[in-house]
């Protein structure tokens, strides 16, 4: 039996929901840190950023659980070994950041001198990470975590650019159907370009 050449609906849904959320998070993150402190828009954006960020954490947990229990389609055998390795490492890095960034953000919030409670989407209270809010040198830790969150955002943007560039290369240059494996089933008008065999 040949393995499926496509990701299943759950994996595709989780991927694109995450993609949408991450783009929104990056946009909000850049805008909110540039706005006048204390403005109404800035405050709302921070609250939305927290809500969506924790949502990405939840989505990533689900994705990992799904990926570990549902084998993803294999990479085309036409790909050289180093490219396969690069793809694995790239995805590993993306997964790592999708875990690390929300956790870092959560830690930033938990150590904030403002001590603002998090209420996800204005409805679901999220406590601070245990132990962090009571740290004696909270301020220094907070600054460090903030720098980490910002560096992580830059790394994520870099890795996403590679991810997107690779997907487009697969589709338009290599024409090996790798991109189509992750395209939602609704738009499956075009037949798969190949099974990688």
């Amino acid at each position, binding site marked *: 039996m040949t393995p499926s050449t496509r990701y299943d609906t759950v994996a595709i849904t989780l991927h694109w929901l995450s993609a949408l959320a991450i783009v929104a998070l990056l946009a909000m993150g850049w805008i909110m840190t540039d706005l006048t402190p*204390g403005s109404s828009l800035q405050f709302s954006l921070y609250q939305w950023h927290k809500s969506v960020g924790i949502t990405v954490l939840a989505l990533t947990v689900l994705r990992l659980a799904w990926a570990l229990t549902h084998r993803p389609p294999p990479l085309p055998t036409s790909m050289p070994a180093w490219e396969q390795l690069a793809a694995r490492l790239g995805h590993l890095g993306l997964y790592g950041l999708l875990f690390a960034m929300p956790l870092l953000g959560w830690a930033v919030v938990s150590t904030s*001198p403002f001590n603002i409670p998090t*209420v996800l989407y204005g409805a679901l209270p999220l406590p601070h990470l245990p132990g962090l809010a009571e740290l004696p040198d909270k301020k220094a830790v907070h600054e460090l975590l903030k720098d980490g969150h910002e560096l992580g955002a830059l790394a994520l943007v870099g890795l996403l650019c590679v991810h997107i560039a690779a997907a487009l290369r697969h589709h338009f240059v290599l024409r090996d159907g790798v991109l189509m494996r992750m395209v939602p089933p609704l738009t499956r008008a075009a037949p798969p370009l190949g099974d990688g065999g």
Partner: protein
Amino acid sequence: MSRFVSLPLVLFVLAASLATTATTPTPALAAEWTVDPARSRLGFAGAAAGAPFEGTFRRWDATIDFDPAHPEQARALVTIDMASAATGDRQKDQALPEADWFDIKSHPRAEFEATGFRPAGGSAYEAPGTLTIRGIRRPATLPFTLDLKDGTAHAVGRLGLVRTDFGVGQGEWTSPQFVALEVTVRFDLIATKRR
């Protein structure tokens, strides 16, 4: 909660006023009022991140001793359970009891104690007194209107405060950048004369 005029004192004053017609500065016969919590409201208003917000205290108590004929002898004590502050916004309601704000662990109650109401024309009065929030005592004069009808009193008033005068908003919050320093306390109170 302590009552200003205890029963023995009332009896003493009663006996004294019956025994003598001298114009001694003894207080007039106590006229205590019982606040109807269902029809009374004690609230506050402020602004955070450029947006106004309102809240109420759901648990508070007032002892009022007031004789319209002798407003200068009036006494009032309002005690507010600071843990009962509610704005309808979960985020604010979680933050308010914290150490930066009301610090309810160390200061569970706020208090306003007034001695002597000053008539300010018509139904208007002023109640000079002491306001205690977060353990910080400051003089405060509360303006209000009072309408008396068939043994029922309707008092409405508001008091503008600067929250940082009472340490409400510590650390970064002492700045007005995120939360306005000006806060208004409002009340609308219905009380009935105790028989």
